[in-house]
């Protein structure tokens, strides 16, 4: 009952004229960003975060939340129309979305993606409302050892479940943590890693510099290389009658939608997982359990519904650990978390008690953003198609300028802009060699929280690491972290066994 009252209060905040306008604007902007090839929610949120300094924190997170939702919807548009996923979260949508578009059913595919995204988002936000307060209450009992072990678990998830090269993943995590340590030592106050006394390093490296470098500049360089600036767009006819027919056909896919929504939500909660594996898993489950698996990949509408419902539910799921524990569930939520720090809010369970207006206004805005993203998506499909026809040589310089100006604004220091370019170029080269970049961004956000937690814990225990294994919650998190770290090794051993048996 208390949750219901808080949610009603949240709706009052979310429907204030400024916030409502930001929800609508955020959804529209997010949809366009998500629809651009190679750009997704993380790029949109990273590039536009510096623009939120004008409004209060609640309005700022509402705006970014709406961009996040809009971009999750928009990712499907370029997957279907261009055959290029708007973001990695929409990769699975390409499998059946592109064949449908080529068969002349682009409108049906777009409506299916939008509706499934709405169902996924709705299920996700309802589960979020129910789970967030109890989880925050448990998290209130956490001290430094629990916080550090929880963060270690988050990093271990990247190693265990990330699916990337393990030494490269570990390297990415560590370099993010080291970059987060640049500046003044929090305890002694002495300068640390300032590279020959360069004054720009004294204020540390703002996480946005790394985030925009990687998700703005590096991503654009990557997209320019992959697409070579040339993309082929499918033709689409959108009429009221065809849209209604598509909606009627979608009624038969409700089971797939619900499966995708629940699966996506719970995968999204896991720190390293996020929406991409959620969507791919939902596609896999839908295909495996289907009566006609051979039609998947050839234009089966369930092949769009499953990943789209899953990626939207996962994007909401990823916000649960961010708000309740202060541990982001995805790169986008890592940037939202960094935003909370910039706005002067302490991420974690205390936000629920200290800033209820912020939290519940944000949660309520997700319901509204979900609805507006659906409406704007369906209404503006022709406009998105027009924008996608714009040559990449017009979109690219605009995005580059936004990156540069956005990188300057948080600290008003040109040193950060140069640093951002270096991160962008090095990030692009490393990405070409399959170094995962998301762990580095997560690490630079969590680093300044993890280091004091570790040092305080060790100070309490007199230097003994046993403190992480004698407290109930901390020991559970550490055990999970070690299992996750050992998981790739176990997988290798299990894979070797059948191979050896075969050889016999």
């Amino acid at each position, binding site marked *: 009952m208390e949750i219901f009252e808080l949610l009603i209060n949240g709706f009052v905040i979310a429907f204030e004229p400024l916030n409502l306008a930001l929800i609508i604007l955020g959804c529209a902007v997010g949809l366009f960003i998500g629809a651009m090839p190679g750009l997704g929610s993380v790029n949109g949120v990273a590039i536009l975060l510096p623009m939120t300094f004008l409004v209060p924190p609640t309005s700022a997170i509402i705006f970014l939340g709406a961009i996040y939702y809009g971009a999750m919807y928009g990712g499907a548009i370029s997957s279907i129309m261009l055959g290029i996923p708007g973001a990695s979260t929409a990769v699975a949508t390409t499998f059946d979305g592109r064949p449908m578009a080529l068969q002349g059913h682009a409108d049906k595919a777009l409506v299916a993606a939008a509706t499934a995204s709405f169902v996924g988002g709705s299920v996700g936000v309802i589960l979020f409302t129910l789970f967030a307060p109890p989880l925050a209450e448990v998290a209130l009992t956490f001290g430094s050892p629990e916080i550090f072990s929880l963060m270690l678990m988050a990093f271990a998830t990247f190693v265990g479940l990330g699916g990337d090269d393990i030494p490269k993943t570990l390297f990415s995590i560590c370099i993010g943590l080291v970059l987060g340590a640049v500046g003044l030592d929090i305890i002694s106050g002495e300068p640390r890693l300032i590279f020959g006394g360069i004054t720009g390093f004294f204020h540390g490296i703002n996480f946005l510099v790394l985030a925009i470098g990687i998700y703005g500049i590096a991503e654009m360089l990557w997209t320019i290389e992959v697409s070579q600036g040339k993309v082929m767009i499918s033709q689409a006819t959108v009429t009221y009658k065809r849209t209604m027919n598509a909606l009627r056909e979608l009624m038969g896919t409700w089971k797939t939608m619900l499966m995708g929504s629940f699966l996506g939500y719970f995968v999204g909660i896991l720190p390293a997982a996020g929406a991409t594996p959620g969507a791919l898993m939902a596609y896999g489950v839908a295909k495996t359990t289907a009566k006609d698996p051979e039609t998947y990949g050839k234009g089966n509408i369930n092949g769009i519904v499953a990943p789209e419902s899953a990626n939207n539910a996962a994007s909401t799921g990823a916000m649960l650990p961010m708000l309740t524990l202060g541990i982001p569930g995805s790169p986008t939520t890592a940037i939202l978390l960094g935003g909370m720090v910039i706005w002067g809010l302490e991420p974690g369970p205390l936000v629920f008690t200290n800033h209820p207006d912020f939290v519940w206004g944000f949660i309520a805005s997700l319901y509204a953003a979900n609805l507006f993203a659906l409406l704007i998506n369906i209404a503006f499909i022709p406009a998105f198609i027009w924008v996608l026809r714009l040559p990449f*040589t017009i979109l690219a310089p605009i995005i580059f300028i936004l990156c540069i100006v956005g990188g300057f604004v948080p600290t008003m220091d*040109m040193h950060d802009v140069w640093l951002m370019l270096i991160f962008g170029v090095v990030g692009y080269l490393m990405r070409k060699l399959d170094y995962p970049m998301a762990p580095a961004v997560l690490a630079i956000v969590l680093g300044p929280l993890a280091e004091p937690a570790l040092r305080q814990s060790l100070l309490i225990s007199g230097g003994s690491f046993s403190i992480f294994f004698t407290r109930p919650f901390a020991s559970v998190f550490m055990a999970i972290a070690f299992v996750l770290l050992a998981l790739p090794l176990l997988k290798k051993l299990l894979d070797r066994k059948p191979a050896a048996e075969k050889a016999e």
Partner: protein
Amino acid sequence: MRMAEIVMGIAMGVFSLYLMWKSAELPIGWIAGEGPGGGSWPFWLSAIMLLCCFAIVYRGVKRLTPESRSEEPFMTDQTIKLFALNAGSLAVMIGLFHIVGAYGAIPAFLIFYLRFMGGHSWRLTGIFAFFTPIATFLFFEIALQKTLPKGYTDPWFEPIFAFFY
């Protein structure tokens, strides 16, 4: 691709060593009453990075990763050209921020990118080069009150600010 993987591993290994050396400028051990020294956190993380680099180089040499087995070049001539043009023009734009400021650098970048890289008409290039700095100025300087660098053009903006305030 294999050579690039090994070179990147070695470069990052050297960078890790440099970070370890710089971190060790602060105490990296236990300080009585204070706990771990200020350099311990980045030092030990850099040490892990160095170990990872050894593993990356080893796996590259032994062809244990998809990249090291790939026969494709790390960058084709066309990719190098695109990369150099994009990253280079960005570097020049940022450099120009110091001299002619944001409102000189942005139009110059747009003219180069749209006209010479994109092959768009002078009319379209002109529209973007003219209106983008105005939109940037109104949004950042007037709405957000965030001052962008102006270099030697700073005095030119005094009458404009006098008009708004």
